[in-house]
């Protein structure tokens, strides 16, 4: 196909696709919806877009040269001041202190978004163990998240279990589910594994939705209590007679901000713990075994490794972090329903892992921030949000197919003297 034809076809496709999105508008006349042409502004917008696509396609070779040039040049690596381990430690300390101070210096809304981001960081890190390290494509990760959330919600509703007791139980139960799912899928890999895990995530959601007697079905569970600080509540008045609240105990006036900040700090603590634990795991033999398994299963067997145990280990450990994140999510929201655990959540978490660079912890953290903060920032663009999102993904595919910060495995460096 000549350049003109291919550019013309591309422009035509843009026109057709964009025509439905921008060129038409729905107005209601009485009770009927009427389809009509949209405002001239939007139509101009559409044609400008079509023209851009035409020009870009026409000069595709030049554009391609430009992008390949960028690829070879833009080697994103850790800046030099972050390379030595001692400097890394110092910078990590700075970052942690900054994160600890953050809620006291910013608005309530920002802290709230940051808390949400931290939940996604935790989920991303957990899934990173399964997908990034062990190479098992898991599309049902949100199932374990749901297990964690419902564990706390139900235990609290029926037995009045407090958050701090429920947290390890939620992690344990999610791990158990991970273990149980691990068994049937051990023989599968790649696409087949993805489909089975996808099914598993859906089974959990549908079960929660339909088991109305136990879970309240689509109505969800409301009034899940917030976590307490050693028994001190963050509400205006204590929920039980004789209990003390946080502001009473410290003799300060009540502010709803304390609760938000407390939740943020708790999420931060959980994330730091997750990062630490997974960092240790990667450096342990099991971490290396996960990677070896991802690279070559047959060679692993030849070396006497038991793929069954290694895969189950990855599933179990990955799921337990989702369980922790889930119970924290339930405590933060105060209300959960199966709606919160749809497939799109799994997809977002997986996108975080892939975007960040499979296996790389720092990359996953950055990607989680990007995936939660950017949509919030782009709130003004409203209906174009998903468009921007898609654009970002496409650009990533062109320039950084290996993710933001591809994994660099820990290894010993020989001293050069």
């Amino acid at each position, binding site marked *: 196909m000549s350049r003109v034809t291919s550019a013309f076809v591309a422009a035509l496709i843009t026109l057709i696709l964009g025509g439905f999105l921008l060129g038409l508008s729905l107005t209601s006349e009485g009770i009927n919806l009427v389809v009509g042409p949209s405002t001239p502004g939007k139509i101009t917008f559409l044609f400008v877009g079509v023209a851009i696509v035409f020009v870009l396609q026409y000069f595709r070779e030049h554009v391609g040269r430009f992008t390949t040039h960028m690829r070879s040049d833009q080697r994103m690596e850790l800046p030099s001041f972050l390379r030595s381990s001692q400097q890394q430690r110092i910078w990590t300390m700075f970052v942690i202190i900054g994160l600890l101070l953050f809620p006291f210096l910013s608005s309530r809304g920002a802290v709230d978004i940051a808390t949400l981001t931290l939940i996604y960081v935790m989920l991303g890190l957990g899934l990173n163990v399964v997908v990034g390290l062990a190479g098992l494509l898991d599309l049902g990760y949100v199932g374990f998240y749901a297990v964690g959330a419902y564990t706390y919600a139900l235990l609290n509703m029926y037995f009045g279990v407090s958050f701090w007791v429920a947290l390890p139980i939620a992690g344990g139960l999610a791990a158990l589910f991970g273990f149980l799912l691990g068994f049937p899928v051990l023989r599968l890999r790649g696409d087949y594994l993805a489909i089975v895990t996808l099914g598993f995530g859906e089974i959990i959601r549908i079960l929660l939705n339909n088991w109305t007697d136990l879970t309240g079905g689509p109505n969800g569970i409301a009034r899940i209590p917030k976590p307490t600080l050693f028994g001190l509540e963050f509400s205006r008045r204590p929920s039980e007679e004789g209990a003390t609240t946080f502001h009473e105990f410290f003799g300060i006036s009540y502010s709803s901000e304390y609760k938000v900040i407390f939740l943020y700090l708790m999420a931060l603590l959980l994330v730091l713990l997750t990062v630490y634990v997974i960092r240790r795991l990667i450096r342990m*033999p099991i971490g*290396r*075994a996960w*990677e*070896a398994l991802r*690279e*070559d299963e*047959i*060679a*692993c*067997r*030849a*070396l*006497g*490794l*038991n*793929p069954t145990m290694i895969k189950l280990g990855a599933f179990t450990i990955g799921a337990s972090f989702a369980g922790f994140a889930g119970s924290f999510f339930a405590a933060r929201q105060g209300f959960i329903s199966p709606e919160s655990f749809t497939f799109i959540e799994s997809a977002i978490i997986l996108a975080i892992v892939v975007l960040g660079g499979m296996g790389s912890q720092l990359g996953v953290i950055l990607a989680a921030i990007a995936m939660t903060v950017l949509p919030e920032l782009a709130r003004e663009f409203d209906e174009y949000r998903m468009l921007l999102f898609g654009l970002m993904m496409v650009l990533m595919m062109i320039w950084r197919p290996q993710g933001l910060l591809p994994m660099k*495995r820990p*290894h*010993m*460096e*020989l001293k050069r003297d």
Partner: protein
Amino acid sequence: MLRLDNIHTHYGPIEALKGVSLNIDKGEIVTLIGANGAGKTTLLMTVCGEPRASSGTVTWKGNDITQKETSEIMRTGLAVVPEGRRVFSGMTVEENLAMGGFFNYTNYDERLAHVLELFPRLKERYSQRAGTMSGGEQQMLAIGRAMMSNPELLILDEPSLGLAPIIINQIFEIIDQLRKEGTTIFLVEQNANQALRLADRGYVIEHGHIVLEDTGDNLLVNEDVRKAYLGG
């Protein structure tokens, strides 16, 4: 040391091994030669427990291992260099070797030093990713990795596959060296000429049957073997 008695192995309805018996004694190099599809690799895999023999027994150091799990078998002093090398290409040489010593941490440093001494090339490439090395270097790494578990019996599946003649010579020299150090070696090869030169004894497998068994030198001059495998 390793003994196979009347082994039958099936892939579904297809019988790949039809009653194979062989025997490897301590300290010798035994080679198994045969054409494509004769059952060489199947025999090897049966020793490792996958696919499992449908009848017959595999005895290793006096224990019946026919029904044992692959991962258990591989931890009892048996090491395999799989066909096609199968190094962990994204991992460095160091990490590959560490995976070899996964279950045997005693004298780890000593064994690592020994392997690096056997393969000076690996020392040069120590922190390089295995996937970026040449085929010969990868083969050396695969053997080195297997040696990291300090095996009593080393099983090599076509170590000369896809390598240049000069590299093949090096690999065979190393195999000889390993034997002198006391490792028993079971060599499965298509390169019959070189394998038989090196081996103490050899077996010829055809269509799932062992058709010949003799010393390496005798097989080299055997009329049928020459015709079938050594190009007349």
